[in-house]
């Protein structure tokens, strides 16, 4: 009997897992959230925050000083400059199309040369980037003000004729080489920003894999309330086989979602995921964590409506905390510490290591270890709870 029972464990687990997958695809709504939604959101976010989409800075005003400042802004490469009129600029900033606008008086160059200050109006949009872009804009205008203001300063000091001073200062400025600021990586090579589809796709992969696996918690509750689990128990099937089978089902769903996103993002958006073996091991382990979480929620909740609310909350909440929506680099140090309580952040770090730095499986061993620990804890707790709830009359 025992021998017989054990021999049937593997096919039983396989059957239960397979039906979990079939049940997921039968539900049309799942098709949308598994197949279409991840692609849509990666596309929208990619267009939104992709590398080609520098924030716009509007400049209103004419004259040498303004032209020079606008040119310096363009050269920073971090913003796009749009020259417009004052009232149009006010509208553009008000509707957040332009992140920061600057209005300079037309005779600004002259005012600086007359050794007087120039008043600039900084129009700030209500976007989060405004504060940061404001700094870039201020620097550009400050360095454009150097030549005219030195002219003013020297004219006052020397008492020389203004044309002559301007000529001398211009010539000197021309002869002096600009001080360059060069950004380098610690290795010495040029730094290149790669904030784009790669990061967004990795974040969304983790978010959607976890969320869609978690939604399966409802199926587990249904199996229980419809009495399927109890009937299985009445057959020569051990509690552990059921737990294993349901868990394998969730795991399949998660793996499927992860593989789908990897393939589609690579084909549609050219996302490079890096070393294949590492990526496969990573998503296998992460799907295991998600399966464990789904089992736990399924074991703890009593009806599937409640489970739906809780899964959305946990799925989106942990995802946000774990850095799948906003890169971890932008977190404050406290929040980064909190983020490391989520499996997402560890998996995200591993994806970065493999995808961006060309790491291999050896480099992500620590992250994989932590993820495995998550999986063991979740699955252990879930199995223990399920054993109790399943065998309760």
């Amino acid at each position, binding site marked *: 009997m025992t021998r017989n029972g054990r021999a049937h464990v593997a096919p039983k687990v396989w059957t239960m897992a397979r039906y979990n997958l079939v049940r997921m695809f039968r539900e049309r709504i799942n098709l949308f959230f598994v197949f279409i939604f991840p692609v*849509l959101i990666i596309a929208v976010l990619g267009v939104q925050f992709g590398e080609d989409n520098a924030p716009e800075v509007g400049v209103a005003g004419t004259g040498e000083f303004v032209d020079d400042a606008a040119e310096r802004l363009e050269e920073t490469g971090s913003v796009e400059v749009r020259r417009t009129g004052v009232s149009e600029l006010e509208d553009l900033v008000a*509707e957040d199309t332009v992140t920061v606008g600057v209005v300079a008086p037309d005779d600004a160059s002259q005012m600086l040369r007359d050794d007087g200050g120039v008043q600039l109006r900084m129009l700030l949009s209500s976007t989060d980037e405004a*504060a940061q872009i404001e700094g870039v804009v201020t620097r550009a205008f*400050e360095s454009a*003000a150097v030549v005219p203001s030195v002219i003013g*300063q020297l004219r006052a000091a020397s008492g020389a004729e203004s044309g002559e001073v301007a000529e001398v200062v211009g010539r000197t400025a021309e002869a002096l080489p600009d001080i360059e600021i060069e950004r380098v990586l*610690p290795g010495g090579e040029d730094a290149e920003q790669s904030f784009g589809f790669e990061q967004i796709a990795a974040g969304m992969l983790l978010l959607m894999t976890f969320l869609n696996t978690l939604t399966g918690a409802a199926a587990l509750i249904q199996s229980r309330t419809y009495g399927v689990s109890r009937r299985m128990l009445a057959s020569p099937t051990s509690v552990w086989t059921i737990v294993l089978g349901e868990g394998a089902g969730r795991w399949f769903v998660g793996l499927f979602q992860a593989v789908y996103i990897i393939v589609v993002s690579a084909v549609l958006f050219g996302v490079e995921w890096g070393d294949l073996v590492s990526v496969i091991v990573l998503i296998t382990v992460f799907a295991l964590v998600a399966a464990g979480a789904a089992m736990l929620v399924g074991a703890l909740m009593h009806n599937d409506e409640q489970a739906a609310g809780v899964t*959305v909350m946990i799925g989106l909440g942990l995802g946000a905390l774990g850095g799948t929506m906003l890169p971890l680099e932008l977190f404050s140090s406290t929040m980064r510490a909190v983020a490391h309580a989520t499996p997402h952040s560890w998996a995200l770090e591993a994806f970065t290591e493999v995808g961006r730095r060309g790491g291999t499986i050896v480099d992500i061993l620590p992250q994989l270890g932590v993820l495995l620990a998550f999986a063991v804890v979740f699955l252990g707790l879930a199995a223990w709870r399920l054993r109790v709830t399943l065998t309760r009359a």
Partner: protein
Amino acid sequence: MIAAVRTITVKDMRQRLRDKSFFLVGIVTPFVLAIIFDLVFGGLGGDELEVRAGVVDADQSEISGRLYEGVSAIDGEGGVTIVTFDGDSGTGPDGTSDGELDVRSAIDEQGLDAVIVIPEGFGADVTSGGGQAPRLRVVADPDRPIQVGIVESIADGLVTDIERSRLAAGAGQQLGTSTEPALQEADLDLHREWPGGEGLDTGSRMLAGMVVMFVFFTVSFGVTTLLSEKETGTMRRLLAAPIRRDAILAAKGIVSYVLGALATVILMVAGAVLMDADWGPWLGVSALVLAAVLTAVALMAVVAGIAKTAEGASGVQAIVAVGLAMLGGSWFPVASEGILGVLSQLTPHYWFLEGLDSLAGADSGSVVLPHVAALVAIAVVVGVPATVLLRRRLTP
């Protein structure tokens, strides 16, 4: 008719409130998510960003010394921490000397985002005129581009000061005046303005986004009961009773509307009390909320009017609710130009959020009139066919 509407409304309302999912999905989930999002995204405002930078003076000239001190002086300002290093451990100008390795390990060990390196010969290059362009290096942690950008802009500001005094000294010499390299303060007098209003702070905006996203789910519970009543057979009994069909429809509509408005108000009051959200003039806010809930009812009703089963309806409703929320900017601001911008402006979420954005800090609630008008327009365009469709479903 009125008595019938009242009876059905009261019964449905009691049923929905007794079900825990109204509180869980309608109130607890959006609120918890808003708090989490606020914690995560709230630090983005700029001034709260923590930056750790190092500075190395390998040049030890007068100019590099001034730069070094300038950078050091910023320590402690606006979330910036500066760690100073001895010049000896710095790097050679070619960037490949052993010193470079020290900078790298310093970045790792001290958790620095970037190190400003003043290379040997920097001071000489600055004063020589002609010759080699003086170069300042910012050794960056590639994973922290935003913080590196801030460090660069600090360096940029100090470099501008050096360029200015260098120019003043050089040109002054030719003109026969020796100007002290006194820093010319306040060439530029910057006046900050917010033409579109400062808008909601990040936390309130996150909450508003979640509120308008989840009100669609809350409302859908009420609308879908029309279908489930049909499935369980209670609809037949209702139709057999001496009640006009419109009474049934009206009651379902009222229940959905009231539940949606209730959840929204609870959430926004909770936001004001617990998260210090400042929503602006209450009259404008109320008008916006009432109009937004109306569009939610209309949109969810049209889905229920087309769907075959209650389960199918809630599936599609979830898709519509999540899809519109994403497009309308519930999760992150969506571009206001291009196709995405046009699509975004077709969602009620966009108008609700934009309306709240312009109300924040406004003197009068009337600024929100165009937003309310847009919401009502969406509600009418969607609501009329929804009523026709649903009325047809009221068959035994």
